[in-house]
């Protein structure tokens, strides 16, 4: 089963959490069947799992659907490309969502993103794939513009000396 990831599922951490949730749901159903449902409280489903189920139109009460979802998540965990995005500060969910939308529309529909922090980049982000680093930070922009800054300083010094 090919799953489509909702925007709330960002990276491998969320996939693992979803897998754990489905496992606990499965456990609940097994226990409920064994104890005829007495004294057992159903586990609270997370919004993420709800969204996954609604996005993929999956009925989690169905055992086969649960198994398929678990299998699909395992497959996604193994096959989905993962990138690492670092920001200067924790990104607000809305902003991260917009970035994720762009990434899944333009790069890969099931792209997983690990979010990290790098306060010294000031602004922008650093994207790291398995093979490469794309430094899209303000720090890198400053570094690339250093020659221009040197020209400005040089000009200012020459102006003062004259």
């Amino acid at each position, binding site marked *: 089963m090919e799953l489509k990831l909702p925007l709330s599922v960002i990276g491998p951490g969320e996939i693992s959490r979803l897998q754990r949730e489905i496992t606990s749901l499965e456990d609940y159903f097994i226990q409920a069947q064994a104890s005829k449902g007495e004294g057992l409280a159903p586990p609270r489903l997370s919004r993420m799992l709800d969204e996954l189920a609604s996005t993929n139109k999956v009925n989690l009460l169905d055992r086969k659907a649960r198994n398929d979802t678990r299998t699909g998540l395992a497959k996604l965990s193994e096959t989905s490309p993962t990138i690492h995005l670092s920001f200067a*500060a924790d990104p607000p969910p809305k902003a991260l969502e917009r*970035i994720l939308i762009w990434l899944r529309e333009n790069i890969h529909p099931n792209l997983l993103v690990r979010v990290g922090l790098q306060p010294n980049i000031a602004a922008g982000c650093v994207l790291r794939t*398995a093979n490469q680093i794309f430094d899209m930070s303000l720090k890198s922009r400053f*570094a690339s513009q250093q020659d221009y800054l040197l020209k400005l300083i040089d000009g200012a010094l020459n102006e003062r000396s004259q």
Partner: protein
Amino acid sequence: MVTGSLAAATLAFIWLARKVSHSGPPLPDTQASLDKTAKNQVEHIFDNEFREELRNRGRLHFEKVIGENAMFLQQDLRQTTAQLNDYMRGEIMRTLQEEFKKYEQSISDAKQIALQSIDKTIATIDQQRDFLESQLHTQSEAQKLRIITQFERAMASILNHYIVQALGDQIDISDQLDFILAELEKNKADILEDIKRGA
């Protein structure tokens, strides 16, 4: 001269006496007496007084001659001395002038050599100074350039660091979304390529 005068006087006297005695044929006795008389007369004429006078005259004449000769000798000596002095003076002057000329020539040569040496030294010093000046100038320019480059790099680094530190996490990521998405768009092809290769 005195002796000559005396001898002439004696000869004249003898000639006179013989003349007188040969005027007639003398008798043998007479002859003897005449001889005796002549002898006496000669002794009478040439007595001590006459001899003393002749001696005095001779002495005076001799002294006169000696005096004249001494005067001539003195004059001659003076003249010779003066000539000798002139000659010596001339010789000494000539020698001194030659020596002075040699000395002047030596001084002139030494001066010339010293001047040439000084000129060479000045030229060498000038060359050394020019070389040092150019070397110093080059080094100072290089040092200046190095300091300026170092300063500019340090300044750029300081500015970058300052801006990054000043901004810190003050810029909201929501405000950076356009920048981030633009950067992603710019790197889209590379990211896609890298994802495909990774997959």
